[in-house]
């Protein structure tokens, strides 16, 4: 199979703008994320990260600008549309149903139905099949210790995060956006989640990661997209910058030889 460079781009955002009434919150966001890449989305409080994520999740419609998925321009006007396009957002508060069990969460709205035609029409669930699939998924993705029938509220924070990620994978997502996935976790749980992120990206998933932990970004991410007051001020390989330089970019300072040319190079 011949792969062109364009074929590799999973997500491309071009000059995205968002107004809330007359406040101009996103003021020209542009970046790309390739297949199998872990991209950090950085920016100070209020830089517009969550707004951007909500545009990708189909919760907000951008005022103007384009979002391309696998090279095709898309209007993401609902969470269902986002899901169909293979975009899944794992929110800080996880958006799991705490009262429901792990399997129920993994298969919510993606239930496997009974194969019998009549029962299938009724929406009768094939619980065995879902359990087997869930077991396989957990084993493949490093969630062995997680008890399938337990309500999610009884899992540890790291396990919940892992379930949320596995849910995204099971929902067919190949672009996974995460809002501070490890902020509330202890170091061992944090490592579990990081291992899973690495595993998913090595299998071709594109991960967009909002994080305030620059040390983690340096270890985990391939590229960093920096927002400042609603604009992209940098889209650079993490290897090529120091954490201090990233910090400077986040606070709106120009960084010698980094942001300006790299960014214009990308734009042209």
């Amino acid at each position, binding site marked *: 199979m011949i792969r062109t460079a364009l074929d590799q781009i999973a997500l491309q955002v071009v000059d995205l703008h968002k107004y809330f009434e007359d406040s101009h919150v996103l003021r020209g966001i542009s970046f790309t994320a390739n297949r199998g890449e872990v991209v950090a989305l950085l920016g100070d409080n209020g830089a517009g990260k969550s707004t951007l994520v909500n545009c990708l*999740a189909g919760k907000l419609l951008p005022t103007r600008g384009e979002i391309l998925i696998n090279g095709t321009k898309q209007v993401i006007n609902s*969470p*269902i549309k986002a*899901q169909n396009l293979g975009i899944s*957002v794992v*929110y800080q508060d*996880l*958006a*799991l*149903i*705490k*009262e*429901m069990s792990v399997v*129920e969460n993994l298969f*919510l*709205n993606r*239930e496997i*139905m009974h194969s019998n035609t009549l029962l299938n029409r*009724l*929406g*009768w*669930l094939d*619980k065995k099949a879902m359990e087997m699939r869930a077991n396989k998924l957990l084993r493949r993705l490093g969630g062995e210790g997680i008890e399938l029938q337990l309500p999610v509220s009884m899992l540890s924070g790291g396990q919940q995060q892992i379930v949320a990620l596995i*849910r995204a994978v099971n*929902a067919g997502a190949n672009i996974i956006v995460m809002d501070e996935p490890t902020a509330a976790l202890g170091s061992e749980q944090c490592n579990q989640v990081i291992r899973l992120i690495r595993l998913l990206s090595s299998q071709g998933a594109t991960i967009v990661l909002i994080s305030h932990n620059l040390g983690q970004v340096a270890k985990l991410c391939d590229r960093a997209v920096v927002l400042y007051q609603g604009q992209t001020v940098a889209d650079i390989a993490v290897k090529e910058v120091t954490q201090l330089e990233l910090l400077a970019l986040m606070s709106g300072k120009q960084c010698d030889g980094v942001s300006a040319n790299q960014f214009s190079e990308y734009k042209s």
Partner: protein
Amino acid sequence: MMKLSAQVTANTLVYYTFVLTVVVFTFVLHSSAFFSVENWLNIVRQTAPIVVMAIALNVALSAGQLDLSIGAVVALSGLIAALLLPEYGVVIASVVALSLGGAIGAFNGYLSLRLAVPSLIITLGTMVFLNGFVRYLSGLESIPILNKPFLALFGGGSIWGVPTLLLWVLGIAVSVYCVFNYVQLGRHLLATGANVTAARAMGVNTIKVRIIAMSLSGFLAALAGLLYAGRMQSARYTLGESELITVLAAIAIGGCSLLGGKVSIWGTVLGVWLIGILNNGLILSGFSSDVQMMMKGVILIVAVGITFRARKQ
């Protein structure tokens, strides 16, 4: 004692109370008719429409909606059936009554979402409106039902000694139980009731799900109305009107969350039967209906209290 109170959670409360009540009354009323199959079948017959109403409310609550209009829908459905029966027969009368119930529920759900007003308020409005409407429709008269097939289907008859009404109750309870435990719709109802934002984020069409919940609730309430009218062999504007408190008390003690996202079908059935037995036992012990009303109020508060405490822990 500590251990016992730890075991009596919101889910099991109704079972303990049920057994305790039966045992107490059996001792207190050992010389009366209380402990007889006939008396118990009678309780089952009398409470059948209320069980169905309580299951209807379970369905609404599962999606986080409260439906106060079920009592009024019971009266409306009974009256509509009674009015249509002489001319159009059992099929059309029942279908019209049931569809009307479903439509009122869907309307409640739609309006509450459209206006972003809690369903509690909307259905309170619907309830009062329908209470007035059934008075107008019936002219405050009760309408006798003479249609034999209707009475055989919904009334107080028996098949091989089993009351038809018991079969209805069990049939509906089993069906709704299956919906919540084995069917996709049940999952979506519970997910919507437990955490509407998360359900929406996972692509569940929560608007549709909530309207379906309210519509099913209205449909089941209408069915309760048919059972009520069938048992009474007549329809009256007061049918079901005063049962809302019984339904709420039964649901609360049965372990269904009044906040949504959790149902307990068998707990609810037992909850209604428990209140039926309490009523029956109190009457046989010589207490008046005032005491029964006070008791329902107490049950509601105690059960809700225990449920909320269990939630916090």
